[in-house]
């Protein structure tokens, strides 16, 4: 190993939460050599962000304490520096970029002003023209086209990927020796993520800086890291070179995490036999569906144009199949899912459920059909009514649709539902805020199943979850599909999940379907250029353990 730039020894960070003390980081040690990248990887709450924030001491004083540890950066212990000392290091020698590019830039200052401000702060003697030159150079370095012209642009004029580039430019302007990147690509689409990762590697080659890279995505780790540390509950359970950790994991937790990646999950055998019988009549048939949102302008709110969220989409879904709807954010996949269930009124087109036209039905005539089509949502925080007991959430729709003869019988049915999503019966008598994200998603599924539907739209139901929880939910979905003869429209942006779960794949781009077919065919021999680009951008880590 070459000479270390940053050396963290026996670091502990305790956070005070009310009267309790949480051991957020519990005795971790690692080294970052010059010009190399160290990846901290782990699930949410494992303490990886707190570790990074401890390094540049950004945690609020009074809340965070360090009972032990040394952080040696260029032969000085950062934990022993006073406020002025740490400020001199922060920004100029160690820079940091964050996850959310939409909120980390100040919307009222132009991007040029924000970068020069960082320069002035660390080099008070710098001249105006030099600051501007260096800013433009930094913008060019992050490959923002026409950097001189973009200098006076405001954040709202840039896309998410461009904003993240500006954040990196801001971090690079002072030529730091260490860049801390906290999930810098998590909020971005995969194609943008691929570009940003490529850019960061290139900048590292050019400047020779080191990186502390935090992520939950093993695919990203495989692309970025020379060294990897796996965190679990504040402890570094395994660390070493990228190749050895990813391909010969020693610790059980690392093995478990790698096995939970959708590309490594073993497809159940029964599944193959099940998909053979594909009947001729589709369960759901969509023809020329359009969902356009008007853009109103002026005093009279006249409609000047439309946002074509879903544009001329035709799709057949056959009974018993899992159809994956893939696309990047803003491509209209969620709108399509909601339009199918008549949660979003379609502008024109036709949606037939077992030859029954859905568009134009009144709320009353639609009600019996609602029982057959359900939806499960992405965000575990907002998918359950916080004021209602789980029991009420599950039994109320049953009562409306006349399932179960008495309240007692419906409670019995609801407890069976909870068991079928592998939860405890007693959970009926709790409120949503008492559950973890994964548990809430299971309850959300139980609610969708409460009416014995034939068809469920799953809108990114695993996107907000950690990989191990995601793996459990995916396995649960497959077994439920088996037991209940379900047909699923599974909306996702995760190609790994698509390959594991689905029979058919539909790719959407800017409101239109660009490619559809058998999952194996679409994923292995993509025809449309967009699909090819999307698949090439996915960071994968296929490992046979």
């Amino acid at each position, binding site marked *: 190993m070459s000479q270390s730039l940053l050396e963290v020894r026996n670091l502990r960070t305790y956070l005070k939460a009310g009267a309790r003390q949480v051991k957020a980081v519990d005795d971790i040690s690692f080294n970052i050599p010059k010009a190399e990248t160290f990846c901290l990887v782990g699930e949410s709450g494992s303490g990886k962000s707190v570790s990074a924030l401890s390094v540049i001491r950004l945690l609020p004083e009074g809340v965070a304490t360090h009972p032990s540890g040394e952080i040696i950066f260029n032969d000085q212990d950062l934990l022993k520096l006073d406020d002025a000392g740490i400020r001199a290091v922060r920004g100029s020698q160690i820079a940091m970029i964050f996850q959310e590019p939409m909120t980390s830039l100040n919307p009222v200052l132009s991007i040029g002003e924000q970068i020069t401000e960082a320069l002035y702060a660390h080099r008070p003697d710098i001249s105006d023209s030099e600051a501007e030159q260096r800013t433009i150079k930094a913008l060019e370095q992050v490959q923002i086209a026409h950097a001189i012209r973009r200098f006076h642009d405001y954040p709202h004029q840039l896309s998410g990927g461009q904003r993240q580039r500006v954040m990196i430019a801001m971090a690079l302007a002072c030529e730091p020796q260490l860049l801390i990147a906290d999930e810098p690509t998590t909020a971005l689409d995969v194609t943008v993520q691929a570009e940003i990762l490529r850019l960061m590697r290139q900048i590292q080659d050019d400047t020779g800086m080191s990186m502390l890279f935090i992520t939950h995505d093993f695919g990203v780790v495989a692309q970025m890291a020379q060294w990897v540390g796996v965190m679990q509950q504040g402890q570094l359970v395994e660390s070493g070179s990228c190749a050895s950790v990813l391909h010969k994991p020693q610790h059980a937790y690392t093995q478990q995490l790698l096995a939970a990646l959708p590309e490594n999950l073993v497809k159940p055998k029964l599944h193959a036999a099940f998909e053979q019988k594909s009947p001729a009549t589709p369960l759901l048939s969509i023809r020329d569906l359009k969902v356009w949102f008007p853009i109103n302008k002026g005093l009279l709110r006249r409609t000047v144009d439309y946002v074509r969220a879903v544009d001329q989409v035709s799709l057949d879904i056959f009974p018993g199949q899992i159809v994956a709807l893939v696309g990047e954010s803003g491509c209209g996949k969620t709108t399509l899912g909601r339009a199918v269930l008549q949660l979003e009124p379609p502008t024109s087109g036709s949606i037939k459920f077992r030859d029954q036209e859905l568009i134009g039905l009144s709320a009353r005539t639609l009600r019996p059909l609602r029982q057959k089509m359900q939806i499960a949502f992405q965000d575990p925080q907002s998918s359950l009514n*916080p*004021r209602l007991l789980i029991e009420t959430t599950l039994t109320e729709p049953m009562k409306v649709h006349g399932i179960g003869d008495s309240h007692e019988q419906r409670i019995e049915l609801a407890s069976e539902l909870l068991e079928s999503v592998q939860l405890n019966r007693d959970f009926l008598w709790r409120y949503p805020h*008492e559950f973890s994200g994964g548990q809430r998603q299971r309850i959300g599924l139980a609610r969708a199943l409460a009416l014995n539907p034939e068809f469920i739209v799953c809108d990114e139901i695993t996107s907000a979850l950690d990989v191990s929880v995601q793996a459990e939910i995916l396995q649960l979905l497959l077994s439920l599909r088996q037991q209940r003869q379900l047909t699923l429209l599974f909306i996702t942006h995760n190609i790994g999940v698509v390959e594991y779960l689905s029979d058919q794949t539909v790719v959407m781009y800017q409101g239109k379907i660009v490619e559809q077919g058998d999952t194996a065919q679409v994923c292995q021999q993509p025809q449309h250029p967009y699909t090819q680009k999307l698949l090439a951008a996915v960071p994968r880590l296929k490992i046979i353990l």
Partner: protein
Amino acid sequence: MIKTILGGESYAARVWRKTRNGVGVEVGLAWIGLLVFAAVFAPFLANSMPLLMSKDGIISAPVLHYLSIEDAWVLTTFFIALLVYRIKLKAGQRVALFLLSAIIAAVLVNVYVNPPKLVIYDDFRSAAYTEVDWRIMPPIPYAPTDYLRDLVSKGLEAPFETTGHLHLMGTEENGADVLSRMIHACRIALSIGLIASGIALFIGVIVGGLMGYFSGIADMLGMRLVEIFEDIPTLFLLLTFVAFFGRSLYMMMVIIGITGWSGYARYVRTEFLKLRKQDYVQAAVASGLPLSSILFRHMLPNGIAPLLVAVSFGIAGAILSEATLSFLGLGVVDAPSWGQMLDQAVKSSSFNWWMAVFPGGAIFMTVFAYNLIGEAFRDAIDPKLSDDSGTE
């Protein structure tokens, strides 16, 4: 199983627990509690007649005999409220049971309570009531409209001025005891705040809820209606109505209520616009639940908290409106009210501090108390200030 029970604190219980975290709110609640006690038991706290007396071996209770229909109804409703609070029921059932029993009580009281039409307070100081074996008098032995013609010659006495009969807060120009009037005025202060705000809340929730849920054209029409009502000056409308139809407490409540709902409608609309796109509301729609359930079970309880904060400030506003009107001499004539007492203080030829300080202080304290409760409630529902989040 124990964890299940302990963990099952409902949202309402959590908010209430957090609201109680603080000294200010305890002061506010204590003051409102005192007002409620005074309003309910006013005839037993300040009255010219004995609570209980024994004459020639016969025990009688003149207070009960002279209890007015209103007094009887307030008392029974109070005990019904206590009873309903003790019974374990769902919130909605509680409200329904309470309202139903209150209405039944009103009917029964009207039928069965027949107090004497004419009350001559001087009689209670005559031999028929004084020469008895024993008697228990109320803590303040003067009724609010007892002008003490047989006792006081000049009216207007400062506190502790005369010997022989004690007036803790002095007497007003007609000779009536100020403290007694203060106690009996609690009823108007409390009822105008609660009923006027209740009317405003009812209209506001319905109009705002429909605007927020349906949005589009319903929202546009609703907002125009809100703007129209916001342009009506409440005080001048009240003055006009008083000029045309005479003075009535109930009319004041209704007018303050129907001009005050627009603010609540705006709150509910905003909350509903936000909530209708929430996943759990969409799930309720996708399950085919009826509109009433979506609006009142899935949306309203999640959007009501900011509204209740506004209501506590609204109650304070309604109390001030009544005080203003009474101060202008256009309030209720027969029953005492704090604003009317302030009016008396200003109109009398010399400045008598006890006439201004006590009712003015009471108005100040009540408005202050409701504001304290409103503030505490707002902090309690703000998740950013939540003590569970771990930051300070």
